[in-house]
């Protein structure tokens, strides 16, 4: 698939068709019983990959998600201020903001990358935020198309 084809495909995507990958801290939102393999129940086209702490999320993992066809990527950790491993979510946020090495590559579409900081008990809130984000990504894809 050429780049032009990818973009024309992106352009047509509705909010439901938008593909989102969530790289999530296993201690943030409790997704027990909410996942079928990696698919998030009740939300279309949302895959969740869990790691022990959001501080483990490498910029390269985010790149890998975009390269594998995700339209939007969410890096999720616990609420800022609370981290089981003390500083994981803080470091993750600093990396997303480009304030801490290793840096995220400039080719990564940062407008379609989101940091989400939620605690174990916020399952419903989490799903609503993912839906919101999908809508935002759909808008961004249209904007990006216009920009070209």
């Amino acid at each position: 698939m050429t780049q032009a084809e990818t973009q024309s495909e992106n352009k047509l995507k509705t909010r439901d068709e938008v593909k989102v990958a969530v790289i999530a801290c296993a201690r943030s939102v409790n997704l027990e019983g909410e996942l079928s393999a990696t698919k998030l129940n009740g939300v279309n086209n949302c895959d969740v990959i869990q790691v022990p702490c959001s501080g483990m999320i490498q910029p390269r993992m985010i790149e890998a998600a975009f390269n594998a066809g995700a339209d939007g990527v969410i890096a999720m950790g616990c609420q800022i201020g609370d981290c089981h491993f003390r500083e994981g979510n803080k470091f993750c946020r600093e990396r997303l903001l480009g304030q801490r090495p290793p840096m995220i590559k400039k080719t990564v579409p940062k407008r379609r990358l989101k940091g989400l900081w939620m605690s174990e008990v916020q399952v419903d809130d989490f799903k609503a935020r993912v839906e919101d984000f999908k809508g935002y990504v759909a808008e961004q894809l249209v904007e990006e198309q216009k920009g070209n």
Partner: protein
Amino acid sequence: MLTSFVRSGQKVILRIEDTLNKVFSSEQNLLYYHGAMPNFCMWMLFLSGLLLFAYYTPTLEAAYQSVEYITNRLPYGDVIRGIHRYAADAMLLTVILHALRVYFTDRYREYRLIAWYSGVALSVFMLIIGISGYILVWDERSFTIVTKITDFLGSLPFIGSFLASAFLNGDVISNYTMSMSFFLHTGTSFALLVLLWVHYMRISRPVVNVTWAIGSLISGIILLFAGLFPAISGPEAKFTVEPSYFDIDWFYLWLFPLIDTVGNIGAWLVLIAGVTLVTLLPNFVRNHDKEPASVSKDHCVGCRLCSIDCPYEAIYMAPRNDGSKYKEIAVVIDDRCAECGLCVGACNFDAIELPNYKSPQVMDDIRIALQS
């Protein structure tokens, strides 16, 4: 059962914190400074204590009068005394909050054992400082505390009489007893600092300072109490009079009603059992098998990022002399490793990995998930 109890406690804490975040923002969330708040109170105590120290005289004849002088004659002396009194209560309350939070969020065992043990020791030291502080005022309550503590220490088999005479600093209550109490109060306070160093030992960048807003809030509450309920002495102690009634500070003087209820030996048993139980709490939960992060010699470029990011000081940089063009290599201290993966997040070279969550594997998982 214990696990589900702890889990439900954690949920309650997380819900409270979520609400506080919405009201105050996460930068000003009191519960995110649960460790810094006792520290703030401690420095208030050191500072107010220093001012009291300048005018206090630790002798039987002069102690009571010097405290009265501080309270009634010295400009703002009563405020300083009130701060010293209520900051101690605030410190204990925030310490309890701190202990409950680390317990219910499961942050007290395995790689955090040193912090837990030193925390228990710090609490015992606080009790000693609190009780000895009440002796220094030398009112009727102080006199009763001295006699009761002497009996309490003396009731121990074998070492009892030694401890009792060490506490009295002789065979009778004298000026030396006051010196000893003064020493127990200030000397133990400085020992707190040493123990705090141990408490912070395995933690990189501990949160020891509260924000200006939280500091102002705590100071305000303490000042409010100092104003509403001024700290005052009872009648001066007389060796001939056994006081019939005085107020009990339930934060630090609960030991004495306990002694009255279950006797000296009973109180010792309760104290020892309580401290032992709290100390052994980490042993009631089974630790999972340790699988610490490991460094790949071929990939490590000695960039130091993982050793900087490690929140438990578990990674250090060692000079390498294996013919590599890089000067240093990261080394993991297995016992300290929490298996959190923060070092993995900091590494751009696949050089440090968790055995269970290798980063190439995570990236494969991402690709497979998105293609399914």
